[in-house]
C-alpha cells in the first residue's frame, strides 16, 4: 500500500534498507541478526587477516622492504603523522585507538564498493563509535583535570558561583556524541541511498557511469568523513587532556 506509487513506476528493486536475517529470543526481547552484522563481520575479518599477515611479515622485517612491508609502513606512518599533527605531546596515548578506528571506519565506508551495505550506514554502529568518543572525553577529563577546573569550565562564561550556564553547557556536552554519530551515519546513508536509487530507477542504462558515483560517494565522501570523525575525536580528547595551568 505505502509503496504503491514506487511500485507502479517499475522501481520495485530499490533496496537500501537493513534486512533481518534471523532472530532469537534473549531475556524476552527479540534480537535480530541483520545484514549490518554480516557486513561488519566481513570488514572485521578482512582487517584481522591483514593484521595477521602484517604482523608475521614485520617480525621478519627486511632492511630493504618489499612491497607489502612498504605499504604497511606507509599506512602506519601516515596515521602517526595525522595524530601527532593534532595532539602533539598527547599523541602516544591515543595513537593506537585512532589508527584502529580510522582503518575500521574507512574500510566500512568503502565496503559499498564491494557490494556490501556499509556497516556505518546503520545508526547502531555510528552511535557506538560516538559513545566511545564521549566516554574517552569525560574519562580523560576526570583523569587530567581537577574537579574545580571542570566545574569552572561547565559554568564557563559566568563565574563559578553562578551556574546559570551549567544546563546549556551540559546539553552541548551531550550533543557531541549525537552530532558526531549522526554526521557519519547520514553521510554514508545518503551515498548508499543515491547509489541504490540510480541502480533501481535507471537499471536499464546504469552500465559504466555509476562507477563515477561510486568514486564520489564511497571513496571521496567516505574518506572525508573518516578523517573528520577521527579529527574531531582527537580535538575533543586533546582538549580534555590539556589541563589549563
Amino acid at each position, binding site marked *: 500500500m*505505502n509503496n504503491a506509487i514506487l511500485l507502479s513506476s517499475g522501481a520495485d528493486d530499490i533496496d537500501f534498507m537493513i534486512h533481518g536475517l534471523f532472530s532469537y529470543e534473549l531475556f524476552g526481547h527479540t534480537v535480530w541478526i541483520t545484514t549490518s552484522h554480516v557486513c561488519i563481520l566481513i570488514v572485521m575479518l578482512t582487517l584481522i587477516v591483514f593484521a595477521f599477515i602484517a604482523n608475521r611479515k614485520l617480525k621478519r622485517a627486511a632492511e630493504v622492504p618489499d612491497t607489502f612491508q612498504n605499504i604497511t609502513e606507509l599506512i602506519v606512518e601516515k596515521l602517526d603523522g595525522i595524530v601527532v599533527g593534532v595532539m602533539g605531546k598527547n599523541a602516544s596515548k591515543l595513537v593506537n585507538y585512532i589508527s584502529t578506528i580510522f582503518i575500521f571506519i574507512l574500510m566500512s565506508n568503502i565496503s559499498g564498493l564491494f557490494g556490501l551495505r556499509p556497516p556505518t550506514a546503520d545508526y547502531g554502529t555510528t552511535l557506538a563509535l560516538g559513545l566511545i568518543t564521549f566516554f574517552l572525553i569525560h574519562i580523560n577529563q576526570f583523569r587530567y583535570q581537577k574537579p574545580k577546573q571542570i566545574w569552572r569550565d561547565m559554568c564557563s562564561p559566568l563565574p563559578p558561583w553562578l551556574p546559570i550556564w551549567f544546563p546549556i553547557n551540559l546539553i552541548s556536552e551531550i550533543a557531541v556524541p549525537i552530532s558526531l554519530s549522526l*554526521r557519519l551515519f547520514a*553521510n554514508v546513508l*545518503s551515498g548508499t541511498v543515491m547509489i541504490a536509487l540510480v541502480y533501481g530507477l535507471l537499471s536499464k542504462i546504469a552500465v559504466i557511469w555509476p562507477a563515477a558515483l561510486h568514486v564520489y560517494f564511497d571513496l571521496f565522501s567516505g574518506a572525508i568523513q573518516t578523517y*573528520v570523525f577521527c*579529527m574531531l575525536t582527537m580535538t575533543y580528547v586533546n582538549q580534555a587532556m590539556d589541563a589549563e595551568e
Partner: protein
Amino acid sequence: MGITGEDLILACSAIGAGLAVIAGIGPGIGQGIAAGHAAAAVGRNPGARGEIMSTMLLGQAVAETTGLYGLLVAMLLLFVKPLV
C-alpha cells in the same frame, strides 16, 4: 477514487520531506564561503596549503551537519513513516 486519511498523511509526509531538504541551502552557502576563503588563503600563502586544506575540510564537515539533519528528517518521513 476515495482518498483515505492514510493517503492524505502520506502525501503530506512527501511534501514535508521535500520541505525538509531545503535545509541543504544553508550548508551549501557555508561550505562555499569556507572554500572561497580557503582558496584566497592558499593564494596568499601557498606554503600552508596542507594545513588550510585540512582546516577547511573540518569546518565544511561541521557546517554540513545541519543539512544532514534535514536529510534525516526527510528520510524518516519517507521511509519510517512515523505519522501513519
